[in-house]
C-alpha cells in the first residue's frame, strides 16, 4: 500500500510531468533566401488592407485637392467681382 502511494505521488509530481512532455521544437534557422510567397501563412502579411489603404489614399488626396482648388478659386472670383463693382461705382 505504501509503495502504491509513493508511485502515485511521483507520477503526479512536476518533475515527472515535465519529463513526460515533448520538448518544444526550436524554429529552424534560415540560411538562405526565402521568397515571401513561400513563407508560412502566419508569417505572411495580408495584402488587401495595404492595397485598399493605397487606393483610398490616392482618391481621397486627389478629391481633397480638387475641392481645395475649387474653394480657393471661388473665393478669389467673388473678391474680383466685389472689387470690380467697387471700381465701377467710383467711376
Amino acid at each position: 500500500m505504501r509503495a502504491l502511494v509513493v508511485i502515485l505521488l511521483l507520477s503526479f509530481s512536476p518533475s515527472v510531468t515535465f519529463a513526460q512532455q515533448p520538448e518544444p521544437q526550436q524554429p529552424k534557422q534560415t540560411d538562405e533566401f526565402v521568397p515571401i510567397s513561400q513563407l508560412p501563412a502566419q508569417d505572411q502579411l495580408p495584402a488587401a488592407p495595404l492595397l485598399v489603404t493605397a487606393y483610398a489614399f490616392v482618391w481621397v488626396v486627389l478629391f481633397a485637392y480638387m475641392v481645395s482648388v475649387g474653394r480657393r478659386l471661388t473665393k478669389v472670383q467673388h473678391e474680383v467681382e466685389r472689387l470690380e463693382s467697387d471700381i465701377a461705382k467710383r467711376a
Partner: protein
Amino acid sequence: MGLVQKIFYYHLPSAWVFLLSAIVCGIASARFLFGGSPRQDRLAHAAAELTVLFGAIVLVTGPLWARKAWGVWWQWDVRLTSSLMGWMVAWAYLLVRKYGGPGSDKLAAGLALFGMANVPFVYISVNYWRTIHPATSVVPTLPVDMGLALWFAVACFLLLFVLLLRLRVYLEEQRARLDALYLSLDE
C-alpha cells in the same frame, strides 16, 4: 507578388507625373528667372503644388507596397531618398512663396532649378546604385495585360495632371487679376 502588385498601377504613373511636374516647374522657373515673364512664374507655382501632390501619392503608396514586397516600410536607398528630397524641395518652394515676403518668387525659382536637377538623378539611380527598388528596365519586360493596364493608368494620370495644371494656373491668373484690381483701387 499577388494582390499588392496592383498598387503599382497608381504608384508608377504618379511617380512619372511627380517627376514631370518637377521638370515643368524647373523649366518655367528658369524662363521666369532669365526672361522675367509673370506667366511662367504662375506656371511654376502651379507645377510646384502638383509636385507636392503627386509626390505625396508616390511616397505613401510606395511604402505600402514595400511593406508587403520587401518586409519594410522604408529603405534609405538612393531612389527613395532622392525622391523624398525632390518632394521636400517642392515643399520648400511653396513655403518660400508663401512666407518669404518680397522677392521670394525669384528665391523660389532658384529652388525649383535644384528640384529639376534632382529628377534625372531619381530616375537613373536604380540603374547605378545597389538598391532593392526595381530598375527602370522592368517596364518594357511586363506581360501584355500588365503593360496595357499600366499604360492606361499612365494616360489617365497625365490627363489628370494637365487638367489640374490648367485649373491651378487659372487660379494664379485670377489672383494676379485681383492684385491688379487692388493696385488700381489704390491709385
